[in-house]
């Protein structure tokens, strides 16, 4: 169903050599929802301190792949992984059954498609990850909450109402709060699952600016429906189709000179 030149394994392109060190390596990952296969032998590197975007039509498996990185699929029965995702430093195989997903998730942060703040105060939402790590000192909590809200470009808007319910914020503010919540614990890898799909253009551009600044500190892996967004913020783009990886490379190359016919068709809107 996919043209022959779209071999599942994509070689590391030359542009990758600038960022020689990969944060994570996806090696021949397949995934099954029960008996239904959703990913078919995906392999690619995730270079450190850069933004990698996963694009593709609905149902292509991009969210499924993203959720493999923090084993979200373990929350539901009947799911099965194959292959490995190595997380550096340490080279731990995230997908290994011997890895405790609850422990492994301490190294990653995730922002979901729809803003999902907890029905708690703004402060408690951001401090949540720290509390999970038994941070007790009030000073440390306050300092890290402020830093995370600053990184998520929300501090100025909420600094006077940290102890009000997070549900009183607007949708865009809620999503930035979710980003702050994910950042508060200094994750090594930030997973964004269509973080702007529920937001208006202004809120979207604020989130995009923020992602752009974040890559100085963290490795970002994001799923997006919006190809302009991928072109704007991502250093690397991977195009997926029907559970397979069709093409992956530096965004400039993927968007301007796609190697695969299918990618070109998708980018020009001939299908999808």
């Amino acid at each position, binding site marked *: 169903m996919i043209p022959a030149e779209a071999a599942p394994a994509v070689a590391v392109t030359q542009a990758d050599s600038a960022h020689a060190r990969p944060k994570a390596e996806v090696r021949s990952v397949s995934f099954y929802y029960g008996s239904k296969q959703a990913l078919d032998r995906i392999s690619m590197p995730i270079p450190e301190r850069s933004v990698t975007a996963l694009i593709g039509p609905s149902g292509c498996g991009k969210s499924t792949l993203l959720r493999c990185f923090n084993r979200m699929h373990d929350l539901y029965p009947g799911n099965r992984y194959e292959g490995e995702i190595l997380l550096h430093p340490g080279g731990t195989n995230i997908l290994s059954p011997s890895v405790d997903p609850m422990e492994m998730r301490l190294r*990653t942060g995730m922002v979901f498609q729809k803003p999902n703040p907890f029905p708690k105060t703004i402060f408690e939402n951001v401090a949540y990850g720290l509390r999970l790590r038994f941070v007790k000192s009030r000073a440390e909590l306050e300092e890290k909450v402020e830093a995370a809200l600053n990184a998520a470009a929300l501090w100025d808007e909420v600094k006077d109402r940290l102890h009000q319910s997070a549900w009183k914020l607007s949708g865009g503010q809620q999503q930035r709060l979710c980003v702050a919540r994910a950042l508060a614990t200094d994750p090594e890898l930030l997973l964004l699952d269509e973080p702007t799909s529920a937001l208006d253009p202004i809120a979207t551009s604020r989130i995009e600016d923020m992602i752009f600044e974040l890559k100085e500190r963290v490795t970002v892996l994001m799923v997006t429906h919006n190809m302009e967004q991928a072109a704007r913020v991502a250093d690397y783009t991977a195009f997926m189709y029907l559970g397979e990886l069709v093409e992956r490379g530096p965004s400039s190359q993927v968007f301007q000179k796609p190697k695969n016919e299918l990618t070109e068709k998708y980018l020009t809107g001939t299908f999808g």
Partner: protein
Amino acid sequence: MNDVSQLIRYRKRQDYYFQIVGAACTAVGVLTLAALLIKLSWDGLGQIVRFEFFHNWPILTDVGITFLIALGLAVPVAVSVAALTTDEHENSLLSDVLRILARFRAIAIGLVILLLLAHWLDLFGNRLVGGIVLGLLVTPRLISVSRDFVRQRPVRFGAALSALLLAGVVGLGAVAWAGLTHLLRLEFFLSNASYDASKAGILTAWVGTLGVMTVTFATAVPLGVAAAVYLEEYARKNVFTNLIEINISNLAGVPSISYGLMALWLFSHLLEWKSSIFVGGVTLALLILPIVIVATREALRSIPGSIREAAYAAGATKWQTIRYHLLPYSLGGIATGTIIAMSRAMGETAPLIVIGAAGYLTNLPPSPLQRHFPFVSFDWLNSPFTVLPMQMFYWTSEPGFESHAAATGLVLIVLTLSINAAAISVRYRVRQKLKW
């Protein structure tokens, strides 16, 4: 075409007839209930209410004394506390405590319970005690009111105004207190059972109900919530857990007398315990355990998956997710379910008859407070008991006690209604706060 319109007309007519029949049934049902309720109240009210209250007013001196004591206590304390705690104490522990105490409704409930418990706890006294208790209970509210005034207005004007307000509130409270004690035949609530119809009261019965409910609450809620959390969050879904689930849902519908039989076998035959408050409480706990479990599981299930995912994505363990999210967010549902279950347990008679609750009991259980170290005692758990419905059941077979039975029934109805009202109010507040 004609057929269709005929069919529609027929359906409408059918619907119309049903409406008439339904309305008639409702009217008959409601009227019957109302008539029965009026009869019950007519028979019972005489035991509870002093009708002579409406004819003479020898109570003014009592009102005055209670009022003065309460005023003399509350006003100086309130004004000085209000003056001493300024805005910089706004976030202190003291002001938090005050704010909680200032919930007047809670205070009012506390007042009634304390008034009724006073005898058992050996602090029931005279007007002095009444005045002090009233003064203490209204003081926090007065403090917060007068602080608001002081904050909003220039100090002197504010102080004068708040003093006036305090006087008004304390006065109303005192009148209500003294009026209540004179209007209600409190001796009906404060006397033991007796063969003398003019002296017989429901003290043992409601103290027994209180004790039994305490035991039921303390056992059913922790057990039920823990079991529900385990089943919902930890247990694997398989044939066995499905079987348990079906069983639990069905247990809620088992006739209550069967629980009495099970408890009789367990406590009396197997463990050879005598019938006591503890045994009664645990029996009722068994009865409401399925209700608590089902309510808790429903509440847990209503928490959206996106919140769980967010909780786990940050690296939480199951227990952390339960503690930081699932339990707090389902607390309202658990509370509502528990309150309704407790109200059902309070009215249960059949299982308690089976395990041998007393119908006629003239001794109160030992007080949970004692004068010497360690000041609390749990002997009451082990004493024989009766409860309100048992007492009522006993009186129905005694000639001359018809009005006592009716009055007890009335008390039970009022109690159950207020408990259910509390459940509704909790549910409403939670829905206001948490709309997923």
